[in-house]
């Protein structure tokens, strides 16, 4: 096992990793930017090294400084957390080349699943369901129409070289598709210098369904079942829950096992998440694989009893996964609420500044992962999440009730947070009945 682990991150996830290290008998070392000097989580580290000024690009994204900090602190491994350098295969490679174990997948496995074309190819091999559609670019429009008829409308036309919404068209029927392909080709040619487009199934009222998987360096991998993260705004997850409500148990087992098989095929070690969309008939279509621990990992910990962060460190140190798939059972229901310093009443305006009041909820089934305390100043430089409230209860109904209680107890001020939004969403019929989809939050917000 490692003696000292450097944590290349900040805030709540740095604190989460500190706690995991401490319990494994590892000394956690933090790096921090000068904006985070005095950050409460740093007190809990064995050592803290300032690596640069506030902007991430000059501190938390500076590979050379992070490696230098690992050198001077004599760490033997580096944990990237999430965001920042966590999905940067180059960083993983530099860590390895500099003699530090990267706590995450090998650069090769990260690349294999991070590249969408390669990932889709692997997924098909592993039996992981992907979006049907033309695989490569469209040469012949009639052929594209035939594919669309086979998979059923609506479909989406996407530019092969594209991104950012350009070169994309949603088609509801054949006429729309023919027109859409023409337009998308022109747009893609102009925008990316590459007119190649392809056609995939389009889902508009889907739910976001993601499978937590974890593998070791010995070819073992298990899934820890799934999370439903359909409560989103601008692709930012707000509420996550595990397990996904009202899902057919046999379909759940099948898609979760296919996700575990995918990371086995990729020779992947560490935690990963396979993200899917689930349509109303509970068909699954993989979106992408996140090759790191995720913000919402605690709800999977709650329902399975597995400590994902500790396991990630242990497999990075070469240990075998300490459990088999048959050891993993779903117990109860869990929800996570991302407490963001944003004002939901004023278009989610960010709320950096002094936190004067921070009264956290407690009691049975309540977990709070947060680096914040009264007197903490939220810096303007990083994301607005100031904590995660994780609620675990025997059933989904009880979890909603317990969550409403905890949110009512949770007092933060004078900065505004997303707490009132969650109090509203937990009373929305669509959410309560699990008939929601990835757009319901935006529809609700637009309607008011």
């Amino acid at each position, binding site marked *: 096992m490692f003696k000292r682990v450097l944590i290349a991150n900040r805030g709540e996830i740095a604190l989460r990793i500190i706690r995991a290290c401490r319990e494994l008998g590892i000394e956690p070392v933090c*790096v921090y930017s*000068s904006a985070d*000097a005095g950050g409460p989580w740093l007190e809990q580290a064995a*050592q*803290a*090294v*300032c*690596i*640069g*000024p506030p902007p991430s690009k000059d*501190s938390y994204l500076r*590979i*050379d*400084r992070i*490696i*230098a*900090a690992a*050198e*001077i*602190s*004599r760490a033997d491994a580096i944990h990237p957390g999430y965001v920042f350098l966590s999905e940067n295969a*180059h960083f993983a*490679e*530099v860590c390895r*080349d*500099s003699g530090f174990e990267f706590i995450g997948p090998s650069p090769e496995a990260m690349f294999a699943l991070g590249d969408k074309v390669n990932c889709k190819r692997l997924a098909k091999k592993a039996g992981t369901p992907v979006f049907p559609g033309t695989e490569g670019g469209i040469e012949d429009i009639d052929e594209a129409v035939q594919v669309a008829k086979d998979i059923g409308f609506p479909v989406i036309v996407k530019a092969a070289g594209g991104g950012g919404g350009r070169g994309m068209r949603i088609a509801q029927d054949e006429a729309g598709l023919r027109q859409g392909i023409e337009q998308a080709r022109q747009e893609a040619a102009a925008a990316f210098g590459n007119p190649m487009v392809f056609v995939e199934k389009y889902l508009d009222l889907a739910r976001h369904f993601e499978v937590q998987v974890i593998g070791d360096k010995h070819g073992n991998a298990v899934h820890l079942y799934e999370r439903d993260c359909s409560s989103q705004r601008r692709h930012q997850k707000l509420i996550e829950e595990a397990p996904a409500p009202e899902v057919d148990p046999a379909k759940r087992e099948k898609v979760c096992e296919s996700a575990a098989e995918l990371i086995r095929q990729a020779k992947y070690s560490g935690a990963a998440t396979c993200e899917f969309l689930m349509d109303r008939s509970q068909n699954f279509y993989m979106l992408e694989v996140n090759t790191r621990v995720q913000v919402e990992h605690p709800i999977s910990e709650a329902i399975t009893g597995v400590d994902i962060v500790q396991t990630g460190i242990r497999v990075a140190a070469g240990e075998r996964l300490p459990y088999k798939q048959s050891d993993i059972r779903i117990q109860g229901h869990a929800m996570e609420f991302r407490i963001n310093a944003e004002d939901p009443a004023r278009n989610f305006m960010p709320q950096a500044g002094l936190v004067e009041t921070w009264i956290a909820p407690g009691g049975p089934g309540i977990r709070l992962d947060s680096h914040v305390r009264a007197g903490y100043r939220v810096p303007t430089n990083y994301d607005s999440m100031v904590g995660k409230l994780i609620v675990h209860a025997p059933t989904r109904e009880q979890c909603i009730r317990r969550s409403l209680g905890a949110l009512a107890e949770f007092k933060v001020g004078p900065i505004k947070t997303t707490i009132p939004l969650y109090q509203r969403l937990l009373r929305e019929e669509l959410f309560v009945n699990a008939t929601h989809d990835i757009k319901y939050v935006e529809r609700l917000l637009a309607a008011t």
Partner: protein
Amino acid sequence: MDIRKLKELVRLMVDNDLTELDLRDKDEQATIRRQTTLTAPQVVHHGVPLTPSMHSAPVSPTAAAEVATAKPGASSGAGDEAGLEAIESPMVGTFYAASGPDKPPLATVGLSVDANTVVCLLEAMKIFNEIKAERSGTIVKVLVKNGQAVEFGQKLFLVRPS
């Protein structure tokens, strides 16, 4: 120039016993020198400001480094003596006072410096970076020891500005 490329260059040098490498293209410029014996680093100059100068020597950084425990701004306690300015570390690494084990310190108390005077080396990732005074004046205090680990923003020297 990314770290991977630099590290590959240094590895190339070590593997082939090169002592100097000088690269230029329209965006980047790098000069790397190394010694093949276990001696101290030798200073190099860099051309384009954004490209750090580097020097590689097979010195174990962890063997020489002491663990930094001080917080920036709290590292000396003397940084705000009236009229004095501090030269702060622009990076994380190990402080070397001299450019070689047999060499005298680059900066001692009483030395007059100007903006371009190299006052120490900071080593990270086996690369030695020269640190300039960035101001004119006289060194009145050296705040860190040879071989000590320093973090970003840590005060290294106190200077009485001229």
